[in-house]
């Protein structure tokens, strides 16, 4: 009996090295030394030296797949099973390991970037990160081309999502879920609700407001409130500086309780926060936990952001075809509707709404899941930043987050 190899690819490689040659302990130490040396070299090597190549596809003989995703992002029953995924396994014979391993784009990138740069397996054959991160991965040449022949259901992709500037025609990526960032409030404390960002920054809410640590959502909403069209390209450093000023003023004054990721939900639950900039699907989850419609979500009248989390297959994945089979499966309208009914985000799959109308009539008119043109006209996609702006804007945002 051999134990399964550890998940960390570097260590897994070391273990298999040791097993292959039945090494003595001293030799193993030597091997580890080489591994550490390689790590040190990898850390020193300037990024993007040689573009990684796609790994050889073994999908036809190896019917397994690992999929990395965010928490509460797929249908789940009380026993912790994923019904749509179980159905997929029965249907295709591909065994899927679903890993909830992403809670922040930057952090996730930080943990796998060395393997990405070297074209090695990252531990997940496919994973879903946010579009701006997908744009970076494509720019760096870290992800494989998808084979349309294996994804006939790609025809169900919402036309509006087919040609993003970072991946025209969706040659290397395919959306998983989309969602809004807007404002939410506790209806017990604020029965009159909020309409704009100015309401959020009103003195009465001092210290009771959280905003998202995702720069494009928080800054996107502030920019929109200042009349900037965040999808267009006719704005830059000056407009951003003005928006940062607003954020910094409200952080320094203590108006904003914290700049946070998903953990802002704890503040909503404990009463520390009663309003904030949040993600649409989270509010449904928070209400489910509260047992009633305690929180209400809305796009500010000045506009909210529309973001997407998207499938990619890293260069080091040898099971691209299995991943494509999975994507194809989730582009069946029936399956997409089932997932949407659970996660409460916007499905990118055309036809899912019709299915939902039959199976989940109470959800079919939910603007957060199946938004109409009216709602969508008030949601904006943050334009893809070039590398210099990306770094400068993020540096400013993190500076405010760290305080002085």
């Amino acid at each position: 009996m051999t134990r399964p190899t550890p998940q960390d690819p570097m260590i897994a490689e070391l273990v298999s090295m040791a097993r292959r040659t039945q090494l003595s302990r001293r030799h193993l130490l030597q091997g580890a030394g080489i591994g550490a040396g390689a790590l040190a070299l990898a850390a020193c090597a300037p990024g993007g030296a040689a573009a990684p190549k796609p790994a050889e596809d073994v999908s036809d003989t190896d019917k397994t797949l690992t999929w990395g995703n965010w928490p509460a992002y797929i249908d789940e029953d009380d026993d912790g099973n994923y019904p749509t995924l179980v159905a997929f396994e029965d249907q295709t014979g591909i065994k899927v390991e679903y890993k909830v391993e992403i809670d922040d784009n930057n952090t996730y990138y930080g943990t796998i970037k060395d393997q990405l740069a070297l074209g090695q397996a990252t531990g997940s054959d496919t994973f879903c990160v946010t579009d701006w991160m997908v744009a970076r991965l494509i720019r760096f040449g870290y992800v494989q081309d998808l084979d349309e022949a294996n994804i006939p259901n790609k025809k169900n992709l919402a036309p509006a999502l087919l040609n993003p500037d970072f991946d025209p025609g969706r040659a290397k990526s395919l959306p998983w879920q989309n969602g809004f960032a807007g404002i939410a409030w506790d209806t017990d404390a604020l029965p009159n609700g909020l309409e704009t960002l100015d309401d959020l920054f009103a003195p009465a809410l001092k210290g009771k407001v959280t905003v998202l640590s995702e720069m494009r959502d928080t800054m996107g909403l502030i920019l929109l409130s200042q009349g900037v069209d965040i999808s267009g390209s006719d704005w830059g450093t000056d407009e951003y500086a003005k928006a940062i000023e607003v954020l910094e003023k409200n952080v320094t004054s203590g108006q904003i309780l914290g700049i946070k990721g998903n953990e802002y939900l704890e503040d909503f639950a404990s009463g520390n926060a009663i309003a904030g900039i949040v993600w649409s699907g989270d509010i449904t989850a928070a209400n489910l936990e509260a047992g009633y419609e305690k929180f209400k979500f809305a796009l500010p009248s000045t506009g909210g952001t529309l973001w997407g989390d998207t499938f990619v297959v890293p260069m080091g994945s040898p099971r691209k075809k299995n991943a494509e089979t999975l994507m194809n499966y989730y582009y069946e309208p029936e399956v997409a509707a089932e997932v949407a009914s659970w996660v409460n985000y916007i499905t990118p799959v055309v036809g899912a709404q019709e299915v939902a109308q039959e199976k989940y009539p109470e959800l079919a008119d939910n603007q957060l899941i199946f938004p109409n043109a009216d709602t969508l006209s008030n949601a904006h996609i943050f334009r893809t930043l070039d590398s210099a702006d990306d770094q400068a804007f993020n540096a400013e945002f993190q500076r405010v987050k760290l305080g002085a």
Partner: protein
Amino acid sequence: MAFAAFGSSAAPVEQAPRRRSWVALVLLLPGLAYLALFFLTPFVSLILTSLQTPVEFGDVGQFQQAFKIENYAIVVEQYWPHFLRAFGYALAATFFALVISYPLAYFIGVKARRWPLIQALMLTLVIAPFFISFLLRTLAWKALMSDETPLVQALKALSIIPNDGHLTGTAFSVIFGLTYNFIPFMTLPLYTTLERLDTRYLEAGSDLYAGPATTFWKVTVPLSMPGIVSGTLLTFIPASGDYINASASFLGSAQTQMVGNVIETNFLGLLNYPAAAALSVILMAVILLVVGIYVRRSGTEDLL
């Protein structure tokens, strides 16, 4: 270094027979290899990283080896308040942990000697929190200190904190969290020295007409100095690099960010590895300096 204090401090030093033994060397080898592999190599890599410079027209997270010593000046200029805050908070937490732990350790180690069962029980209680992840315990404190709890409501009613004030996200909650999390690291070394305290010295003190306070300061404290020093080191060093308690997700806010949070943000949020590395090197150097002076002044060089 400080772990030496866990060993016997008063044991007579016996000269081992001097034999050139290769066995000792072989036994030492795994330890040395471990240090070389997991301390020296990363440390060299850290120093090299701290001197890197961005690739010209490069993308985010792309750096090349250089000798950019300015990295150090840049991070100090930008983040000196976070350094000051980190050492201030760590110092405060160390002080409070000492004040709380000393009587506790004294009771367990000296007063409770007659009741071994109570001694064992109390020691277990000191260690018991380790059975639960300290992240969970810190989150629990966050919940206990949140705005709607009776504690905070009472403090507000008494006007101790203003009506729009909070308990979480303040310097108080961060120092509280640090103190709470590091108390066992203070109590255990104190206990190991106090447990060995010869009470006949205390009797001798009172025989020589010293009052209880004088006996304490002149006899008990000097005898327990090794425990105090190792306890304060075990608290101060990790506390000054801590980034959990001060994080906005736990007990802190934008107003309480410590240098550990700055390193984390530079590494994971900004992918600015040279800045993160330079900050880490500076943090290590300052801690080493502070600890060196402290140990020298407290007259316990043999601990190092």
